[in-house]
């Protein structure tokens, strides 16, 4: 009787010990995986951020070109129509590529689960810059189409076509701070 009781007790203690240690080891393993995954995400965020910065520079270059070719008068618009439309297409392509190459940045920044201060700062800047880019693009397209309508009022014989954007058609408040950067 005493032997079976001891045996039961030992078995129970051993069982409990194995369950507890197993749970702890499993927790530790998944925790390490989690930390590793976070580091991978942080690295890909840094890479995407660097690529995003390059895209903003390209965007700026094309905007400056657009300002140059679009001109100040209807005669310039008429003369440079092909180059202007080509520039608009390039700008749209840059924005489209930016959307495609920043998926991890967007996801991580919106879900806000990484506590690295550098990542947090990059997220903040990315959100503002992305909002500025999109809103500047939308403002540009709206302005261009308004100018084309005025031009067509002047030149009814050979009117120009307005530009239809496939990427963005309205202003966004990406960082949800109530301010539409780039829209003014």
């Amino acid at each position, binding site marked *: 009787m005493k032997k079976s009781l001891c045996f039961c007790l030992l078995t129970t203690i051993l069982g409990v010990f194995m369950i507890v240690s197993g749970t702890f080891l499993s927790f530790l393993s998944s925790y390490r995986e989690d930390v590793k995954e*976070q580091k991978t995400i942080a690295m890909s965020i840094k890479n995407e951020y660097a690529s995003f910065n390059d895209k903003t520079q390209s965007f700026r270059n094309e905007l400056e070109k657009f300002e140059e070719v679009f*001109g100040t008068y209807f005669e310039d618009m008429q003369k440079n129509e092909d180059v202007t439309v080509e520039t608009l297409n390039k700008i749209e392509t840059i924005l489209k590529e930016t959307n495609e190459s920043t998926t991890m940045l967007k996801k991580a920044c919106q879900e806000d689960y990484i*506590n690295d*201060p550098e990542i947090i700062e*990059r997220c903040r800047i990315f959100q503002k810059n992305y909002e*500025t880019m999109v809103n500047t693009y939308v403002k540009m397209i709206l302005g261009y189409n308004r100018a084309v309508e005025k031009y067509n009022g002047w030149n009814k014989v050979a009117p120009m076509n307005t530009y239809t954007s496939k990427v963005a058609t309205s202003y966004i408040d990406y960082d949800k701070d109530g301010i539409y950067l780039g829209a003014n």
Partner: protein
Amino acid sequence: MTKFDSEIIGATKEYKDLKKEIKVELQKEEKKPRKKKSKRKYFKVFFYLSFLILCTCVLLFMMGLHKSTIVSLTWVIPTIILSVIILLISGSYLILVKPKKKHSNVISTCVLTSYLLIMYGVTFLFYGSYGVKDFIINKALASMNYQYIASFFYDNKTINQIASSHQLEPESQTIYEDLVSFEDIKLNQPEYVNQYEEAVLSNKENAPYKIIKVEGTLENTDYHYEGFLAVIYDPSKVKLAVSSGMGIDETAYGEIIPTMAKREKAILAMNAGGFYDPDWMSNGGIPHGPVIKDGVLLTNFRQYPANGGIIGFNNENKLVLLKVSGEEAVQMGVRDAVDWGPFLIINGENQQKNSAYTWALARTAIGQRKDGIVLMLVIDGLQEHSKGATFYEMAKIMERYGAYNAANLDGGTSASLWANGDFINIPFNGEQRTIRRLPNAWIVVE
């Protein structure tokens, strides 16, 4: 009967007696009231339970103090109080009522002590200043999906404090400079056809007229020309002023532009039609062709022959270029007109595109755009700063500024534009600055 048989009978009798005794005993047992179970057991259970609860509550109390997400002090504190009361009561009873067996207390004492040590140990580790708090918070925050562990034990203020004290400054300061702005890039909104259109149409102060400086180089030459274009926004303000001595005989005399302008209270004036000037020294009293003012034909001395005709404004304030007689012009509703030429632009068609006349001189022209704006152009000539303009250049300039109809007026020494009390251009006779007497002038009244 054998001995064996008598033993059997004796054993059987003994057995029967024994059975009877057992039966009686059993009956007695049934009738005996049962003993009550020991109260001590219950108090022992309460004691152990309240002890365990109290130890656990101490840890929970610390978690609650640190505003852990799962623990609320509203139920922890009453639980502690209750378990202390039960512990005291049951403990007192157990002390007063001595136990029969003592060895069972060793096991329970060991268990309870171990539990107490574990609970207090965990409490001190987690909520003391031994670095465990920092470790747990930092490790939890370093993960993506286990951050809840930190908020399970600690409040947000503590978590933020520890997280920020362990954060390093970002590697690169350039991150803060990455914010972009494209406000320096001005996306134009074209309003005008070209810069000439803009020069004519932009009139922010709503002034009655505007003076634009005009200059260029004569085509196929290096000769520079300069002049001024007056833009008059209300064509109804354009009238014809005539010299008080204008006539068709030798008694006629002309007047200088300032005199005519002053009399008519004009704010701007420009020479108009040509006049009889056989030696270029006449007094400017006899104008060529019909002169119409306020719908009345004033004079009609021989018309200018070269590609010109009536240049004037009708009652609808439209500039008309007509090859008709003075009487016919009056009948057609012309209110003010002179006679000169050539016509430069007729209904949008440039009449001087193929002009072979290349004599550059000081020239004057009048034109009107489709929107009614009147253009008065004067180009200086035979001077260092301005060689002069040909008819071709005059037409080109008028066309550039949107003239729909335009005609050349008298040039040479007569070419004068006056505004704000002085001449804007430099009337010149080939040798010096001079002001000619003229029979008439286009004026702008207020």
